[in-house]
């Protein structure tokens, strides 16, 4: 069967049927997996990113260089494993946590594991943007390292963090589509299983269009929010 045959009236009708019956739920599954995976990725990645900045030799609370080295290597390692391989590698862990390695909920585990090192790096970048003079000023006021992190660096980098978290959500959404190839649910799974594998290319394209629209919406909301939060731009 070739590409042209994928758009015969019969195929289109089948495709329309899939879109009508499966799309709404699949979209929900995608959002659900994305939001929960992002939540867990931030839950782990935010403190980890803070640790990377604070524990640095020039940070507010330097930690043993060896420990920092190990942390950095682990993060780089996790970041360099292709997501599709990582998903398979963590199947035992996924089973241990969720009870199964198939489905939308199960896909949250590898998604969060793949995304938290990425989020940690993003947080690290945001915090490093904070004006070092402001950190010094906080030290001159007698702030503890923890206070500097939580009450100076974090609030000062909120606009940058929002931008970066937006980037994280959209990236994780891309990963959810990939997880459809190995048992995850959502639009990615619909696109591959009901679309590509059965030559209903219209389903494939429709899935992509929905994903694109969601990403666009998230991105523009995130950008607007970041700008709105940034009190440096108030004049």
């Amino acid at each position, binding site marked *: 069967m070739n590409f042209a045959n994928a758009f015969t009236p019969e195929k289109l009708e089948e495709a329309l049927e899939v879109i009508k019956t499966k799309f709404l739920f699949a979209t929900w599954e995608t959002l659900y997996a994305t939001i929960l995976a992002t939540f867990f990725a931030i839950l782990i990645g935010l403190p980890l990113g803070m640790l990377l900045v604070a524990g640095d030799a020039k940070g507010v609370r330097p930690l043993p260089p060896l420990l920092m080295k190990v942390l950095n290597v682990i993060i780089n390692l996790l970041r360099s494993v292709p997501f599709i391989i990582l998903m398979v590698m963590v199947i035992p862990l996924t089973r241990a946590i969720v009870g199964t390695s198939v489905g939308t909920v199960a896909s949250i585990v590898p998604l969060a594991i793949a995304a938290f090192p990425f989020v940690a790096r993003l947080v690290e970048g945001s915090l490093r943007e904070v004006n070092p003079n402001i950190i010094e*000023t906080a030290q*001159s*006021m*007698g702030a*503890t390292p923890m206070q500097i992190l939580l*009450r100076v660096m974090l*609030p*000062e980098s909120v606009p940058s963090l929002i931008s970066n978290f937006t980037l994280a959500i959209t990236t994780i959404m891309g990963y959810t589509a990939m997880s459809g190839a190995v048992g995850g649910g959502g639009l990615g799974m619909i696109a591959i299983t009901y679309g590509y594998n059965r030559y209903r290319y219209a389903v494939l394209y429709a899935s992509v269009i929905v994903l694109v629209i969601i990403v666009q919406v998230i991105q523009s909301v995130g950008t607007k929010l970041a700008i709105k939060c940034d009190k*440096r731009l*108030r004049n």
Partner: protein
Amino acid sequence: MIEIRNLSKSFVTSDGPVDALKNVNLTINNGDIYGIIGMSGAGKSTLVRCINMLERPTEGNILLDGRDLGSLNKKELREVRHRVTMIFQGFNLLMQRTCLKNVILPLRLSGVPKAEAEKRGRELLEIVGLPDKANAYPAQLSGGQQQRVAIARALATDPQVLLCDEATSALDPKTTHQILDLIRDINKKLGITVIVITHQMSVVQEICNRVAILEHGAVVEEGEVAQVFADPKADATRHLVYPEMADSVAISDEHGQRVRIIFNGGPAAKTPLIAQMAMEVGVAASILGASTRSVGERAYGYILLEIPGGPDELAKAVNFLRKTPDVTVSVEVNYGENKGVEA
């Protein structure tokens, strides 16, 4: 009282160790507005950061009311930093927080309840003249206003010492003047000792009572501002007090006899000294360079004269000039082979 004893600080850089401060000894009394002045790279910022231990001295001690700050543990040091606060050239306000939140930050960090801190914060904004800016963000304020907020923040913990690190260097002259007025007020009304780091002699002149001149990490001169202005001894001080003098030094390499009149704060600068000299002793001097300024009600500065003729004319001129009160006369002669300076 702050005593700086045998303070040295060296940094290890990629080009090897750098001695930022060399055996600095200073005593800053309660109620002083103490100026520490020097060119960039003289070590001023390092010195002021040693006073609140943002930089750990390599050697020597900082004593605050007799207590060695180097011996304190972290908690005690944080306590001291409530007593010795700091303002900066770049204001360093939290840009994502309102002015009020900025001002009360030190209080909130030390656990003062929000309502109480905010009440105090509003009082402080009143003191610095910005009662209506509590809910404004720093980006909405001018540089001078931002520095006022920073000053309010520095006053939040009722400090006994305020460190000003080039606090007016980013401001225009008029705003600088206003901020210096505010600092002087704070010193007088609240009895806070102020240490002013600057590269501008005008700042020292305007508010300081004592000054130390720092060059290449060492104190080259120290004393009452009026004294130091009147009779700058170290080269670095002369450069700062009379930046124009550098030019006249170059002229004195040529053949000639020159007299430098230094005004030590008397009314001398207001009398027609040169004209009188021409009329009374008949020496028509030409002016090679001059720079005068007033400190408070008194005049300081110098005039560099070229005296025509030979040693006789020079002697007449010097005798005449030395009769004037409150001036120091120094002679620089260069007759070719015999070159020298005589005080």
